[in-house]
C-alpha cells in the first residue's frame, strides 16, 4: 500500500482546491492520519473507495472525538536585567494562548479487496457550538450509517447527507450530548453508602455533614456464614 504522503499528494493533485494535511500520531502505534477539508471530503472519500490502487471499500470504524477549548500556558524563561545593576533575574513569563476547540470524526478505512491496512482520515468541525456539520459518508460506505448516527447522538456532529439522522442510543427527547467532555450528567442523587473522591464531593452537596460511618459494632445481619 502507498504511504500516507503519497496518498496525500495524489489527493491534492486530483482535487486542487481541497485541503489535505498529514496528522502525526506521537504514540507508539504510529498510525498517522489525513485531515480532510470538509468541503471536498465526499469526493475525496469516493475517490479513495473507487481508486484501483487503493480500493478502500470497507469503512471499519467511525469515531467521534471532542477536543474542548484549551488554554495553553507557555512559560518562557527570560533573563531581565535588574535596573538596580544587580544580577540578571530569571523571570518566567507566561503567555496564555487560547486554542479554539472542535469536534472531530475519525474514519478507519480498510480494503477488503486488496487486504491492506488502515488509512485513517479525520474531519474537523468549525467549532463546538454552532458550526457542527460535517458531510456524511453513509452514501459511500453504508457501514457508517449507524456509527454516524451514534456520533450525532453522543457528540452532536450533524452529518449532512445522512439518509436517516436520528438519535440511536439515547431516547429521542434527550437534549444534551453525553460524550462531550463538558457534559454534566444529571444529579439523580441516591444515598451512596461508599462515597469517596469525586462521588464524595457530589454527595456532599446533598448533606452538610459527611454521612455517619456505618455502625462499627457487629450488627447481626443475616449474611451467609461460609
Amino acid at each position, binding site marked *: 500500500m502507498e504511504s500516507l504522503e503519497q496518498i496525500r499528494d495524489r489527493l491534492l493533485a486530483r482535487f486542487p482546491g481541497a485541503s489535505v494535511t498529514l496528522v502525526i500520531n506521537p504514540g*507508539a*502505534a504510529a498510525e498517522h492520519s489525513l485531515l480532510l477539508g470538509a468541503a471536498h471530503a465526499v469526493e475525496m472519500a469516493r475517490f479513495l473507495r473507487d481508486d484501483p490502487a487503493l480500493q478502500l471499500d470497507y469503512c471499519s470504524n467511525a*469515531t467521534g*472525538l471532542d477536543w474542548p477549548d484549551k488554554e495553553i500556558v507557555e512559560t518562557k524563561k527570560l533573563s531581565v536585567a535588574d535596573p538596580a545593576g544587580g544580577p540578571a533575574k530569571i523571570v518566567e513569563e507566561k503567555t496564555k494562548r487560547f486554542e479554539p476547540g472542535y469536534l472531530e470524526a475519525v474514519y478507519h478505512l480498510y480494503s*477488503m479487496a486488496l487486504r491492506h491496512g488502515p488509512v*485513517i482520515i479525520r474531519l474537523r468541525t468549525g467549532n463546538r457550538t454552532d458550526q457542527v456539520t460535517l458531510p456524511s459518508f453513509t452514501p459511500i460506505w*453504508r*457501514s457508517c*450509517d449507524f456509527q454516524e448516527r451514534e456520533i450525532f447522538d453522543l457528540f452532536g456532529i450533524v452529518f449532512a447527507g445522512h439518509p436517516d439522522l436520528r438519535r440511536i*442510543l439515547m431516547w429521542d427527547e434527550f437534549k444534551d450530548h453525553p460524550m462531550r467532555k463538558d457534559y454534566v450528567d444529571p444529579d439523580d442523587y441516591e444515598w451512596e453508602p461508599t462515597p469517596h473522591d469525586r462521588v464524595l464531593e457530589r454527595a456532599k452537596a446533598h448533606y452538610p455533614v459527611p454521612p455517619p460511618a456505618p455502625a462499627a459494632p457487629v450488627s447481626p445481619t443475616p449474611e451467609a456464614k461460609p
Partner: protein
Amino acid sequence: MSAADLSPFNSPFAAGTAGPSVRAVKDPFHGDLLEVSMGPQHPSTHGVFRMVVTLDGEIIVKLKPVFGYLHRNHEKIAENTSYLGSMPYTDRLDYLCSMTTNWAYALAVEKLAGQAVPDRAQYLRIIMAELTRLVNHSCLVGFLFNDLGTSFTPLLYAFREREKILDLFESLTGSRMMCNYQRFGGCRVDPTPEWLAAASRLVDNFPRFLDEYETMLTGNEIMLARTQGVGVLDAAKAVNAGITGPCLRASGYNYDVRKVDGYGFYPRFDFRVPLGAHGDTYDRYMMRVLEMRESVKILQQAFRDLPAGPIMDPKSKLRGFRPKAGEAYGRTESPKGELGFFLVSDGSPNPYRYRVRPPTLINLTLLEDMCLGHTIADSVVILGSIDIVLGEVDR
C-alpha cells in the same frame, strides 16, 4: 417486488421515514398495513432489541430497528476509569465471549503503549479465544433452532457442551462468563497441567457433539425448507455495509481478520476459513458449525506446542500505567465479526477517548434489506442468524 427496488438505497427506511411503500396497494382485498412493534420484550430478539415492523398480512413491508434499551455509555465510564479498571467492564460488552473482548482491548492498549507479550501468553490467548469461539457458536446454533421452533432440545444439547467449557473458564479465571483474564502484556493466571489435560480432552471429543448435532439437524427437511433462500445477503452489499465475521463469509467473501492481520500467533497455526455460496440463513448456520471444527483444529495445535515461560511481560506495569500521548486502533476477529478498540491517550492514567467498534451493531445495518418480502417467522430467524448480543450493540 423485483430485486431492483429491494436494493438498500431506496428501501423506505433508507429514504427517510416517508419513503415510497415497497408494495403499492392495488386491489381492494388487500387490507391496510399493520404496524407491529416486536420487542423490546420479545422471546426471540435475544435481549432488549426492538423491531418496528410494518406488515401487509404476513409479508414485511418495512422494518425499523430501535436500539438503546441496554445503553449504559460504557465509553464514558471508561474515560473516568484507569486502563486496568476498564478491563472487567469489557467482559460486560459481549457477555457471551468475554475472553475475545478482553484480548481485543489488551491488544489495542499494547499497541498504544508498545507493550511486548511473551510467547506463552500469546498461545494462552489463542487457546482462550478459540474456546470462546466454541462457546459462542454453540450458543448461536442453539438459539437459532429455538427461533426455528424446536422446543429447546438443540439449545439444551448445545448448552450441555458450552457448560463444560465454562467450567474450564471458572476453574482457571474464577468466573464462568466474566473472566477478566487478560492483562496488558500477558495473562493473569497460568493454567495448571491438569487444567490443560482436561481442556485438551474436552476439545478432542467436541467434534463428537458436532457430528451428533449435524446428523440431527443439518439434513432435516424442515430446517432446509425454513432456512435455505431466506434472508439472502449479497457479498458486495455486505462489504459496503461493513458486515464482518461469519455473516460476510456466508456470502462467499473471504475476509477473516485472523488471516488478514495475522495478530497474535495466528500465522503459526494452519487452519482454514469456510466460505458460503448463497449468503442465506442456512449458510450462516453452517459457517458457525464449520468454524467450530476449525477452532478445534487450532486448539489441538495450540495444546500440542504450548511453550513454557512467563505469562506476564516483566516490564508490564499493573498500576500507574500511563501510555504516552497518541492513538491506536486494535482489531481482532471476535466470534461475531471484527471487534476493534480505538484508544486515544493524553498521557494520564485514564484514556482520553475509548471507542469500541461493535460488530453486532454494524451487522444489523442490512437487517431490513434481508427481511423485506419475508414473513415475520422468517424475520425472527434472520435476526437469530446474525447473532446479536445487546450488551455490545447498545454498549
